[in-house]
């Protein structure tokens, strides 16, 4: 059996058409729409249709209903002439601050269950995530990736960390910040605020570094201690920004000392000293003991890099730095999953069942003939190697076809939308 055929894809396009015709009101019309560039990838087409502009949300919706794109994007930037062909003629006016959190870049336990790779060079294949082919070292791997509930939850934790930073450190209001489920394996977080509009690439990189925990310097958090090359922590748990984050993390670190990490931090030299501090931490009733904590420069640097890893947010910094990025249109469908790109308020991120909200097609069962299905995908699990006829909910059938699984539809009746 080959990959999903053209007939299957046409069925997906019909499904998308139904969604856009019936649920056009689910489309989130971006603010200042007349200054944004739009871009679409169409079914059957290659590449993107770019430099499209709309005067109103109505115009945008008409376009979607009429053209039924497979993917829909809008610019994070604002332009005087968004439909102009070249960047120069568009006249850049400013851009929202955007963050991209994608499980592609994060280690998750579920990838071994649903991701596969193939090395076109030597023919090796495998499951899970590898940076390069373990056999020949080539980095240009063909990957097949799927999304499941675990992926979403891992990404969601990062989003929550990020939103906390944006609100408490950067002082953005809950009206200026929102998250978007990408419809695939991640989230985007948008900041629409006057103060970020005109920031250049260097300034955005600095914000990206802040969020990632990059560049922590021990001098900012410590002062000279009682002996040469010993430094005392001066940051306090209640301090703003990374000062508080560092102080709280240092305390936690000593409270639950991990032998392996201690070895790494001290390079095996002062293990007993650190253990002594840990004992003091555990027997103390308050945080005052921390003022007596003195470590070497190397030790501080090592602890800070551990803290950066655990407290920093895993974003794809290229998206944040790019001031002309195209980003998925909330309310549109993701062409690889058939899931809705969902706009979420900062409160929705924690409290909603994201995959359920993103599902727009019904869960009535359809029969498909399938081969090599991923073991875990969306909320479904295929325990045994599937090879033959399976019953799957309709929304999953759309996903399997759209993402190029080896399936053939047996029931090809008109698609129904999920009830709202």
């Amino acid at each position: 059996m080959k990959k999903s055929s053209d007939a299957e894809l046409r069925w997906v396009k019909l499904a998308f058409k139904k969604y856009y015709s019936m649920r056009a009101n689910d489309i989130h019309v971006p603010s200042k729409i007349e200054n944004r560039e739009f871009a679409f990838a169409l079914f059957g087409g290659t590449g993107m249709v770019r430099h499209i502009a709309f005067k109103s949300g109505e115009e945008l919706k008409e376009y979607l209903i009429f053209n039924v794109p497979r993917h829909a994007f809008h610019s994070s930037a604002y332009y005087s002439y968004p439909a102009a062909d070249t960047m120069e003629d568009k006249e850049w006016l400013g851009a929202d601050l955007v963050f991209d959190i994608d499980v592609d870049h994060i280690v998750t336990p579920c990838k071994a269950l649903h991701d596969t790779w193939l090395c076109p060079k030597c023919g090796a294949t495998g499951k899970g995530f590898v940076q390069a082919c373990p056999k020949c070292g080539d980095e240009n791997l063909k990957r097949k990736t799927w999304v499941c509930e675990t992926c979403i939850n891992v990404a969601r934790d990062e989003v929550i960390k990020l939103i906390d930073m944006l609100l408490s450190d950067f002082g953005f209001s809950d009206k200026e910040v929102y998250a978007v489920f990408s419809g695939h394996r991640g989230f985007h977080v948008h900041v629409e605020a006057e103060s970020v509009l005109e920031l250049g690439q260097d300034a955005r990189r600095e914000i990206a570094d802040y969020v990632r925990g990059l560049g922590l310097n021990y001098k900012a958090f410590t002062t000279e201690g009682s002996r040469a090359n010993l430094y005392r922590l001066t940051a306090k748990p209640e301090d703003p920004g990374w000062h508080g984050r560092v102080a709280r993390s240092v305390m936690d670190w000593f409270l639950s000392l991990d032998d392996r990490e201690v070895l790494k931090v001290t390079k095996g030299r002062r293990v007993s000293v650190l253990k002594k501090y840990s004992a003091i931490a555990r027997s103390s009733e308050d945080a005052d003991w921390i003022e007596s904590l003195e470590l070497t420069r190397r030790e501080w640097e090592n602890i800070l890099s551990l803290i950066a890893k655990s407290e920093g947010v895993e974003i794809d910094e290229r998206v944040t730095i790019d001031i002309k990025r195209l980003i998925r249109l909330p309310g549109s469908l993701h062409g690889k999953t058939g899931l809705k790109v969902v706009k979420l308020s900062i409160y929705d991120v924690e409290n909603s069942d994201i995959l359920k909200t993103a599902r727009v097609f019904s869960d009535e069962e359809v029969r498909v003939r399938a081969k090599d299905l991923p073991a875990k995908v969306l909320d479904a699990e295929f325990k045994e190697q599937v090879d033959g006829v399976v019953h799957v909910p309709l929304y999953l059938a759309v996903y399997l076809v759209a993402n190029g699984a080896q399936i053939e539809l047996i029931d090809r009746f008109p698609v129904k939308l999920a009830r709202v």
Partner: protein
Amino acid sequence: MKAYIGRVLLSKEDLAKYPFLPESQKYIESLGFTLEDLSSQPGLKVLERAYARIRAAIDRRVDRRLSEDLDIEILSFPTSIVLLRVLSDKILTRRFGVAEGKRVSSFLLEESEEKLAYIAIKGFGWRIRVFKGSIGSRAFSFLIRMEDYIPLVPEYSGLWKLINRPLMKGWVPVTKTELARLSEEAVKKYLEDRCSAEPPMEVPRVIAKIIDKIKESWSAKMEELGLPKSVKVEKVEDAYPPCIKALLEDLRNGKNLPHTARFALASFLLHIGKTPDEVIDLFRTVPDFREDIARYQIEHIAGLRGSRVKYLPFKCDNMRSLGLCRWKCRGIKHPLQFYRLALKRGKVEYEEI
């Protein structure tokens, strides 16, 4: 002291020290001075003073002098800008910005905190609050909005780096010295913007004469600054920054470099004068070498194809982001800057991070 900065009364001397303030601009307008006035006294004195200011910049001096007649001092500032517009030399303009920025910050450091804040707010449109407090290892005097702070920090590392500041709801704590330093950068930027505007269509003869004088001393200086005849480093390759050396070594060891690394290396080598053929030869060792593709891409980077733009190598920040740099080179922001400095001085200090 109040958290918000009130009005501060400025003397005429202040207007001379801080000629970018709206108050100073207003005063200059009220004098009704025109380009034609430069041809006779007291205009000639103004012109002379403007020349002296630019001359100081050429010599990298900070000229803290204030003319006895403060009107002359004040008017010499816009006059210098006109001269630089006519000259339209980016390097000289930047040098002037540096010198004037340092002059301003040296004056600012002598001011009270309230006055310093007032001048920064009025002069640069920043939002600043007074804040007395110690956080972490440092005592601060002001809070400045992060969108004003980030674009002007002298470097994106060490204590200037945003992550090492106790960021409070978008406000960045800074010391008095740091606020003066940020002002220095703001003056630099102010002057770069002002000096890049169109020059007047016609200038009086006296100006043309001064321009020639400036050109003369500037080109003498340029020659002095130019690359030395004898290269002290043993081989030219010794002057390459560590990131480029590492890429070159990887390449020679037949390692498969990612696309970004190839671009960084090729654009660097093309910029220091290697020919496309020489660069192509280097890449012959890569496992997936194909001459036609390599030639196309390298000629593209060299600006011989496509958009006809010669691509600059990535700057250090970008090299770091791309994972191609794990060094800290003293005072270096761009690999090409390392190379030039290394050729000039014989070495540049750097350490592995």
